[in-house]
């Protein structure tokens, strides 16, 4: 409450760490001028679990389950990034079928992440119903992934040199049915949300990120592509089996909330395309590379591997000094950079817009804190 009388014009509003729409434990100190934001300062670290430090104290295999906990919504991409970095370090080639399985599960996981974002975001804007619609869809993917990976959220599915479990016909037909179902749902989504006048007024022209700002802050992922820069690691630095598939990188024009929303929706469709092609072209063969030692002791050296997660570029940087434990692992996570620009863009907006912008970036707090 404003206590110090007429002299003071602004006051500090503490948004979080326990607030319904900070998506976890983010805390933002908002200096308010009435309902407008004068300045904003994020306070991070409430979800800090020292993943990078843990890496230095355990061997390469032992660190693998940690990756599912960094970004729990797109855990498989983090699995993928780390596995690829280690494979690069020890010089293992992954068999083709394993690469395909990796891509299929990865893209399914990307769809779950975007679906969850869709629901949570609309809830931030005050619409509750879409949340349950997309959770209904998401449930189907979780069931499919549950069958082959054994978990529903914090996956630890990929191994150095391949994947531990092959996909069967049930899984393939399940995925095909799901994609058909998801495509039939777009109409509902668009009728309920995209064409809604209130949503359009809330989203258009709000929280604009210019191209320059994005490049300055190192924004990646759908937030960058919403601003019209077609940068996607899957295309610009192709990895795994992605070069074999035909897909587009959706981009927006204005860089506002609406564009980021549309980009994500269209990305889900592109993921469906990738999955379909991968299922059609799925080669036979082994799913695990031969001769991956049980006890990894890579030679001294360093590698960097970037992958595209649902939120942007995730980079794993591993330094090895020839020991069984990594000397240092640095995780470059997308939400950290995205958050810094987001806070910048809060200025001169209303509290309601803060929630809308925060949601539109799709931050995962444990990923920022690592």
């Amino acid at each position, binding site marked *: *409450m404003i206590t110090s009388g007429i002299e003071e014009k602004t006051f500090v*509003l503490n948004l979080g760490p326990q607030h*319904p729409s900070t998506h976890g434990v983010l805390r933002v100190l908002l200096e308010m001028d009435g309902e407008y934001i004068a300045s904003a300062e994020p306070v991070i670290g409430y979800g800090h679990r020292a993943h990078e430090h843990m890496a230095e104290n355990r061997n390469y295999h032992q660190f693998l389950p940690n990756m599912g906990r960094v970004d729990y919504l797109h855990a498989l991409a983090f699995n993928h990034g780390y596995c690829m970095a280690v494979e690069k370090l020890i010089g293992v080639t992954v068999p083709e079928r394993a690469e395909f399985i990796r891509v299929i599960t990865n893209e399914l996981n990307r769809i779950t992440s975007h679906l969850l974002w869709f629901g949570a975001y609309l809830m931030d804007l*005050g*619409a509750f*119903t879409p949340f349950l*619609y997309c959770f209904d869809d998401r449930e189907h993917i979780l069931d499919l992934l549950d069958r082959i990976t054994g978990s529903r959220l914090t996956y630890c599915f990929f191994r150095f040199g391949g994947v531990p479990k092959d996909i069967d016909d049930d899984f393939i037909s399940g995925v095909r049915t799901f994609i058909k179902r998801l495509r039939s749902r777009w109409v509902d989504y668009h009728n309920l949300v995209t064409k809604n006048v209130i*949503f359009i007024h*809330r989203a258009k022209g709000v929280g604009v990120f210019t191209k320059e700002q994005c490049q300055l802050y190192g924004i990646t992922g759908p937030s960058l592509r919403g601003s019209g820069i077609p940068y996607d690691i899957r295309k610009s630095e192709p990895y795994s089996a992605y070069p074999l598939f035909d897909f587009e990188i959706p981009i927006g024009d204005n860089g506002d909330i609406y564009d980021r929303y549309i980009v994500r929706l269209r990305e889900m469709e592109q993921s469906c395309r990738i999955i379909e092609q991968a299922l059609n072209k799925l080669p036979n063969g082994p799913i695990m590379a031969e001769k991956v030692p049980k006890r990894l002791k890579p030679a001294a050296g360093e590698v960097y591997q970037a992958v595209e997660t649902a939120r942007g570029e995730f980079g794993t940087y591993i330094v090895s000094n020839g020991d069984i434990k990594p000397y240092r692992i640095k995780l470059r996570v997308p939400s950290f950079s995205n958050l810094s620009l987001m806070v910048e863009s809060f200025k001169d907006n209303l509290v309601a*817009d803060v929630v809308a912008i925060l949601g539109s970036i799709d931050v995962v707090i444990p990923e920022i804190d690592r």
Partner: protein
Amino acid sequence: MDLLTHLGIEGVRMIVGLIAVIALVSVNALFLIWMERKVSAHMQLRPGPMEVGWHGAIQTIADAVKLMGKELITPEEVDRPIYYLAPIVVFLPVLLTFLVIPFSQTMIIKDMNVGIVLILAFSTLTVLAILMAGWASNNKYSVFGAIRSVAQNIAYEIPLLVTVMSIILMVGSFKLTDIVTAQGRYWFILVQPLAFILYIICATAETNRTPFDLPEAESELVAGFHTEYSGMRFALFFLAEYTNMFIVSAVAAVLFLGGWRGPILPGVVWFLIKVYALIFLIMWFRWTFPRVRFDQLVTFAWKILIPLSFVNLLLTALALKIF
């Protein structure tokens, strides 16, 4: 002696009426909360409460019992007298408005000739209670909720009143029974469709329902003005919200849908059908729309609703003059 008898009869009538109203309010709120949960659930592809009673019918009674058992937490530093008063102030006017609502031709506690004015006047008092609650809670989010609520209610009160005026022009009486009687040949919704739409929009805003639920915008202001209230104090706010919904729908049924009029079934049944249909409409809004932004909300009221309602009033007056 005559006066005393009269007073006695009136007194008994009042007491019976008040008890009936309190019973109705409680049962209605319990039913509405259950209805809202079921409506929202079925719109969201889920069954909703199913365990307690038939399809969860007595779930809300269980919830009410739980709320009664809750500790009443009073945060430190609150402005105690106002903090304690606010839940009562929010609830009393809601009860009083029931005095004049005609459930059927005879089921009305007191058919006053200022009926509609009384309802509008008392329902405005809700704002005062929200302001009291928000201010006394000594919480920034609560104050935000309270400020928003005041701005919103003032903005939407005007088109609401002007819209109601256009009906009153047609009838020439503030008495609710007269308004219903005047709809003998046709319902006013047929001649005043614009007024009906305006009224429903304003009523949704007046009762702080989505898409106009800014005073308690969950994702922005946590719980808005009642963030610091717990137990039965919170329940009173909740009760008042649902009862308000009943009142605005009842007024809409009287003004536009011909009140208790309808074939075959008794008047009170028709009245309740119309009221609950309108409540269903308001619930439908809530589970479909996102929330509007505060500035958009106020702009919408001042730039679109108020001019439109005046145009409607003017057209009504002209039409009455010509025909």
